[in-house]
């Protein structure tokens, strides 16, 4: 099995949610803005619960927010 990493579309989804800021998203899911920045950059993989909370904010299924892709 090839090496995989967790990617996300949070930046794009934020843009389509009336250009929601990182701070607003952080407040909605109960984490710090630094954690949202780290997730967006792919530096931190959130817990399953946080991933579901983020997906709930965007009203999208989990697979639309996060994907588990093969590393290039």
């Amino acid at each position: 099995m090839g090496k995989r990493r967790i990617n996300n579309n949070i930046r794009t989804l934020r843009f389509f949610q009336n250009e929601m800021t990182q701070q607003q998203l952080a407040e909605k899911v109960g984490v710090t803005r630094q954690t949202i920045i780290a997730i967006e950059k792919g530096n931190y993989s959130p817990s399953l619960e946080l991933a579901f909370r983020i997906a709930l904010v965007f009203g999208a299924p989990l697979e639309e927010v996060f994907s588990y892709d093969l590393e290039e």
Partner: protein
Amino acid sequence: MSFQEKNVTVSLVNFILILGFYLIRVFQMIQGGSFNSTNVFRLWGIVIALAVLVTIFATILTHVVSAVIQAIKTKEEPRLEDIQDERDKLIDLRGTKVTYFVSSIGGFLSMLTFVLGQPPLVMFSLLIFFGVVAQIIGDISRLYLYRRGF
């Protein structure tokens, strides 16, 4: 920089200062010929008391100063940024693991001084030295994880 990062930075600076103070005092004792159990154990007490008190006051000060800076910057009512989310907790756990690891190695090395025929005072001096160094390395690893992510 998040509140947690500021807190870790302040703790790091505190422990570097405490280590500096400890080393200066130990060298002064060695040079002055007053390296005896009474002075070493008094220094132990001072270092531990300093570590506890300075950490508490520094945390309060960091809270107050960051609230004031935030209020000036945003012109909003200051709010306490004391939430510790899952990433903060993970970083803290990893930092604690590093601290314990360095502290265990330090404890082992301190015990080795007995094998080398050194008096117990040397062991006790090294024990507190490695305790403070372990805290410093733990804080550095926390800052590294905050910057690099994991």
